[in-house]
């Protein structure tokens, strides 16, 4: 983005939009970085009135420490002079070898102070830290081609600090994906105190904005097998002769398998759509040298029919929409066929024989599925989807949701208050589409503010049955006033459908809060059809449920319920 374009984006922000304030802390004059960051955040939040607070220059710690708790995030852009002014060009006098040990000691002390300030700020909202992006000055006695021990010490201290910060849950920008030269604008730095070329500042601002407001990761990848998961056509060469190793010049397929296993371990669903004979495929999947476990691949759609039909069956089993999924295949024709049937699906080519292109696809997959942290639900997701498929199959064979079948499933609901640090509850609110009351997404700060309201409640529902645990699958949040309850947030994972959990949740609200009526902040979204259909079934009038109507329409419920969310009634 050019600077003029950024200024125009800022000028076009809605005057009446809700405020969205972000603190940018940096020791240098923030100038164009603030402008470009403002514009990138504004583009991500077009309905808000974004404002960037910058604090005092040369006072990084002070700006972090005084950031208002109401800001939606604190973004910290470090540079070396923040650790000691002698590491910059605007205060001179530290290039003597005798001064270096003192600079190193001073930088260590500053890193400790900075760590405390960052941790303190992170207790109230998101903090994003960008480490120094410019090289150390040529202040050491070695030629630039030789790493001096002192420079190495400074960089090691910084790396240790960043490791501690990242381990504390603070988001740290990774500088490697940023473009390289030219970064340092020495003319601008000496003239105005701004150290970056504007194009580089734009790349930094773009990444910082994406870290503050990350796009929701996709949920599933559907992969082809022949010449994609492995090299070779299994139907032609046999299960023993498809390869994914160095000796066969097919190592990139092994890398792809390794990535898929890593994604599966992080809760990404990995399904297979292949035109093959199932027996031959299963023979390959049983090979002990396969780098992705057979158990991580579910479901296996192996047939001679169109790939789009296989994809449709996989989406039904996963119960997620096509726009949450990537389809990977070596064949441009198969990619086009699937894309034609599912225009919203993301397709990626894995052109066997073109290692560079395959490597780019692997990088793009990591980008699409990257998530800041993993939860218990990520670990059990594949097993719970398998369990749900078993349940759905058994339900269908019993002719629908038979009372007898549900009664025998041994379902247990556990309902807890949402804790401030419950990342899974916040994730559910921000990624659930189908069973979502209104599709509203909230920042961490907005979520915390909502939880802090005296009349507010927020409940998280966990589920398990004899087919296994689903983990935390639903969140309900709202406020009570007298005998009326207003529900403004209600989301439920699609893995938990067809178990009558939604009825049990409503019954719990009526019982626990002793209200006679629940008002729902329902809004139709392009994707929340399942919740709309449910509400049409149980509401007397749009947006309102009474205990009488629930009692009249509620089917038999067989869950055991453990309620740990006892509240003080207002």
């Amino acid at each position, binding site marked *: 983005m*050019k600077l*003029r374009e950024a200024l125009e984006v800022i000028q076009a922000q809605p005057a009446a939009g809700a405020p969205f304030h972000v603190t940018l802390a940096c020791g240098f004059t923030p*100038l*164009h970085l603030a402008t470009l960051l403002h514009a990138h955040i504004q583009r991500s939040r077009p309905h808000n009135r974004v404002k960037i607070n910058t604090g005092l220059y040369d006072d990084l710690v002070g700006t972090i420490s005084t950031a208002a708790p109401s800001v939606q995030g604190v973004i910290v852009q470090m540079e070396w002079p923040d650790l000691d002014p002698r590491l910059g060009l605007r205060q001179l006098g530290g290039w003597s070898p005798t001064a270096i040990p003192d600079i190193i000691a001073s930088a260590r002390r500053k890193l400790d102070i900075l760590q405390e300030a960052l941790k303190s700020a992170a207790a109230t909202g998101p903090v994003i830290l960008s480490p120094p992006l410019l090289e150390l000055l040529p202040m050491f006695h070695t030629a630039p081609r030789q790493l001096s021990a002192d420079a190495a010490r400074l960089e090691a201290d910084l790396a240790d600090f960043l490791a501690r910060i990242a381990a504390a849950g603070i988001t740290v920008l990774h500088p490697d994906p940023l473009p390289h030269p030219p970064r340092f604008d020495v*003319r601008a730095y000496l003239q105005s105190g701004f150290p970056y070329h*504007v194009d580089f500042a734009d790349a930094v601002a773009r990444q910082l904005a994406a870290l503050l407001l990350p796009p929701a990761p996709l949920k599933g990848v559907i992969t082809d097998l022949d010449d994609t998961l492995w090299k070779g056509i299994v139907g032609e060469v046999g299960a023993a002769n498809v390869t994914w190793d160095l000796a066969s010049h097919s190592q990139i397929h092994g890398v792809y398998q390794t990535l898929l296993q890593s994604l599966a371990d992080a809760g990404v669903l990995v399904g297979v759509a292949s035109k093959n004979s199932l027996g031959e495929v299963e023979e390959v999947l049983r090979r002990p040298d396969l780098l992705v476990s057979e158990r991580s691949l579910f479901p296996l759609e192996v047939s001679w029919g169109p790939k789009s039909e296989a994809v449709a069956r996989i989406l039904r089993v996963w119960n997620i929409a096509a726009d949450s999924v990537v389809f990977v295949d070596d064949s441009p024709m198969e990619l086009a066929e699937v894309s034609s049937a599912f225009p919203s699906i993301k397709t990626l080519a894995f052109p066997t024989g073109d290692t560079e292109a395959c490597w780019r696809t692997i990088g793009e997959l990591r980008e699409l599925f990257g998530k800041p942290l993993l939860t218990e639900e990520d670990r059990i997701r594949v097993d719970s989807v398998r369990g749900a498929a078993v349940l759905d199959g058994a339900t269908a064979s019993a002719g629908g949701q038979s009372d007898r079948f549900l009664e025998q499933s041994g379902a247990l609901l556990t309902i807890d208050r949402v804790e401030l640090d419950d990342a899974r509850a916040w994730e559910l609110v921000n990624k659930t589409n189908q069973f979502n009351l209104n599709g509203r997404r909230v920042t961490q700060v907005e979520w915390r503010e909502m939880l802090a309201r005296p009349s507010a409640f927020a409940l998280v529902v966990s589920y398990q049955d004899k087919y296994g645990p689903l983990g935390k699958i639903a969140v309900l949040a709202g406020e009570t006033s007298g005998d009326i309850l207003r529900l403004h947030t209600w989301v439920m994972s699609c893995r938990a459908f067809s178990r009558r959990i939604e009825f049990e949740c409503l019954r719990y609200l009526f019982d626990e809060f002793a209200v006679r009526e629940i008002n729902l902040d329902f809004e139709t979204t392009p994707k929340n059809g399942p919740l709309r259909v449910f509400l049409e079934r149980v509401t007397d009038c749009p947006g309102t449920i009474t205990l009488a109507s629930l009692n009249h329409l509620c089917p038999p419920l067989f869950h055991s319920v453990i309620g740990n969310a006892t509240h003080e009634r207002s």
Partner: protein
Amino acid sequence: MLRMNDLEHRLRRCFHAVFPALSDSVISTVSVEGVSQWDSVAHVTLLEVIHEEFGVLAAEDDAEQLTSFPAWMDYLRQRGQ
């Protein structure tokens, strides 16, 4: 060589991006004395926006003198020859 109308039109866009409150009727005569928003930050921003638009990076000594729309017109005209 930049044509006069084209130059003025593009320079107006630059000024308008940095000083959005200025009306079209006054923009071609403004100077630092008459625009309260024209502070050091705005000045550096204007230098960069003009750099992006024209590929002309004002030298430090020149930049101090470029404190009005007419001064910028003259400066860019000279650089366009």
